[in-house]
């Protein structure tokens, strides 16, 4: 029964996504349904999409991580520091960046479990700390990767397009989907995923089952941080620069995608597939409205209403 319900929840999200694509495709067939535009949508989804995956793990435990948007910026800046300023090779700089992301997530996890600060506050503080650090390290100026060979290709190149010239899907999108696949395996098929869901369902019962709750929470926040670093690499590669002022606000977009995908903020249940579909719904919406020449302020207003409706419909389905 649980499986069926999960399936239905994703079907609903997927149905909404398909409906959105059809509506925009019908209204603007020549501009919306072009390969170029569809690939643009995929590309535009990668960063918030990867952040959404990071957020899903934490939200399933009934926690929240508000620092993920700025954490992405911070890791982009670290990548700039390692690769552009210090001139490390990609093979060293990229793992080092991922480690920095995990370390930042780990810090949030420790503050939450050891100092017993509520996740909302701990990660809110972390958000400010990381933003400050990013600005301090860069002197509030962007770091450019123009000297770093191959960096831009991480996100915008297309290895798939070299094999299948008709399908020039950018590497960033492929990486996003691979991350989603691995994350989905982690959440559904490993002890980590099972504990994450159990923590969200009943933390005290997990503790009294003899499971080291603190340790697993730290691991989950660290994993989230590591995934954010992937978003940081993808984002900065796409811009070919690390922009220290960017990033704030991304966490709310990512969390919206997760919630649209049917993951409950109360914890205990959630799927990566849902979060991926949620992220696509958000970017199809933005892209479609832009193509329809809807003004930015109206886009924002409509997106807000749609998030509320999406969650309301999900609630209806559950009762």
């Amino acid at each position, binding site marked *: *029964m*649980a*499986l069926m319900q999960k399936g239905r929840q994703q079907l609903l999200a997927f149905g909404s996504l398909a409906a959105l694509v059809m509506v925009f495709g019908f209204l603007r067939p020549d501009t919306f349904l072009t390969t170029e535009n569809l690939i643009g949508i995929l590309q535009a989804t990668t960063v918030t999409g990867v952040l959404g995956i990071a957020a899903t793990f934490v939200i399933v435990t009934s926690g929240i991580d508000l620092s993920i948007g700025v954490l992405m910026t911070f890791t982009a800046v670290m990548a700039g520091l390692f690769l552009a300023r210090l001139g490390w090779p990609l093979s060293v700089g990229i793992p080092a960046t991922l480690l920095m992301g995990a370390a930042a997530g780990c810090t949030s996890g420790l503050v939450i479990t050891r100092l017993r600060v509520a996740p909302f506050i701990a990660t809110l503080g972390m958000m400010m700390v990381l933003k400050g650090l990013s600005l301090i390290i860069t002197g509030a100026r962007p770091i450019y990767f123009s000297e770093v060979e191959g960096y831009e290709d991480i996100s915008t190149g297309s290895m798939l397009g070299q094999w299948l010239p008709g399908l020039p899907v950018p590497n960033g999108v492929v990486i996003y989907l691979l991350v989603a696949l691995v994350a989905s*395996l982690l959440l559904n*098929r*490993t*002890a980590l995923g*099972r*504990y994450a*869901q*159990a923590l969200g*369902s*009943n933390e*005290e*019962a*997990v*503790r*009294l*089952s*003899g*499971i*080291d709750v603190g340790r697993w929470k730290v691991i989950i926040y660290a994993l989230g941080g590591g995934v954010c670093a992937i978003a940081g690499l993808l984002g900065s590669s796409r811009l070919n620069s690390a922009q220290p002022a960017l990033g704030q606000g991304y966490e709310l977009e990512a969390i919206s995608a997760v919630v649209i995908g049917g993951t409950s903020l109360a914890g*205990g*249940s959630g799927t990566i597939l849902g979060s991926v579909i949620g992220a696509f719904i958000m970017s199809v919406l933005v892209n479609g409205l832009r193509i329809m020449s809807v003004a930015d302020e109206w886009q924002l207003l409509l997106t807000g209403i749609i998030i509320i409706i999406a969650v309301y419909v999900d609630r209806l389905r559950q009762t």
Partner: protein
Amino acid sequence: MQPMDVLLSASGLDKAFPGVVALRDARFELRAGEVHALMGENGAGKSTLVKILAGVHRRDAGEVLLAGQAVDIDGPAEAQALGISIIHQELQLMPHLTAAQNVFIGREPSRFGWLDERRLNRDAAELFQRIHLDIDPTTPVGTMTVARQQMVEIAKALSRASRVLVMDEPTSALNDLEIAELFKVIDKLRSEGVGIIYISHRMDEIQRIADRITVMRDGGTVGTMPASTPLPQVIALMVGRELAATRSPVPDSSDAAPALEVKGLSRGRLVRDVSFAVKRGEIVAFAGLMGAGRTEVMRTLFGADRAESGEIFVHGKQIRVRGPVDAVAAGIGYLPEDRKHHGLATGMDVESNITLPSLSRCLRAGLLIDRQACAEMATRFVERLRIRTPSNHQIARLLSGGNQQKVVIAKWLARECDVLIFDEPTRGIDVGAKAEIYSLLAALAAEGRAIIVVSSELPEILQLGHRILVMCEGRIAGELPGEHATQETIMALATAWH
């Protein structure tokens, strides 16, 4: 005693939920000034019947007469307007508000649009006085004992001029003194002509307080009888079969090291220099009044709360318990008193719950969950403990209380724990399931596990315990051999320090 009028009568009640028939031609009659106990196993239909009366569910067929008038009860608000109130097992009060604010929530007296706090407190004080309750209306409810909170609930129901009051397991969290206080209030209400429907699993209580008993089974009412009806007869009606008493054989005392030994365990006021040992194959029962520290001893021993001092030995080897992780690693399993909040991840399925503590043993390559191994482990214990569930993927919340308890037991058996602590193993569980849990505990002991049972029900302690340790104010007040102990000798020890 004046002749009693029929206050409420229901007949031919049917109610079906998707897939289940919850009530079938149920009938029930409540007189004014009567305490009428509703008894039956879990799933017999008691709560469905009561919820129909309280407007939570709508009946599919049947008739309800209130003081001779046919009534439709469309919703909880309508039920309250008709004077039918229900006091749920889980109290529905707001802990940060005061007693008075809780009683009059939604009906606050006001003056010129401002809340009239003074009148609120005065009205509440009058109400408390009417049922002889010594409660300060301005005390926040969250700071009161559960017993007092329950009284506030009762006052709240009365403030709505209730004629029919439903009490669902009102004594499950109360100690003997508090129960006596509750019964005084019930007597007062009875003398005022309020009709009380009383749901409880505790037979001794029902014989003390109730006037009549209606027994339910499989969605129907099987009979109404005076409360003085002999117990075995009532139980036979409830379960539709005879229950055999089980007791495991007393283990031989030649064993070298005890399976569990605790020396000088202390933590705060409720765990003071506690020492005891449990042998393999032995069931040691902990008795005592509510608040004597039994649960606290178990939680400290298990590491759920940190000990201040003391030593713990498992099979003769000293272990350091800094948290439940260490206790479980040493083979100690703990069934908490509060199953829903501490024992189960109620939103997860049966299989995930059973395998939760042993997950690290069903991994492939140290990472991936071996689904087949998990499924086999779950199935083995579902079959062995005869857990009644449609599948291993049923959400734990949807199981009956007895089956939920068995899932918690399965979880520790799967983890191969050989020291098992059962804290109130049969709380809120019906008679049939209770008997099953008793024989299960006896079988586990016979297999050589060391078992501790904490219980507030003396008959349970007497039936299960090879040895009985009685606690009082955080200390072990004395020890009694199971076969010679009586309720009186236990109570004498339990109150020794008073």
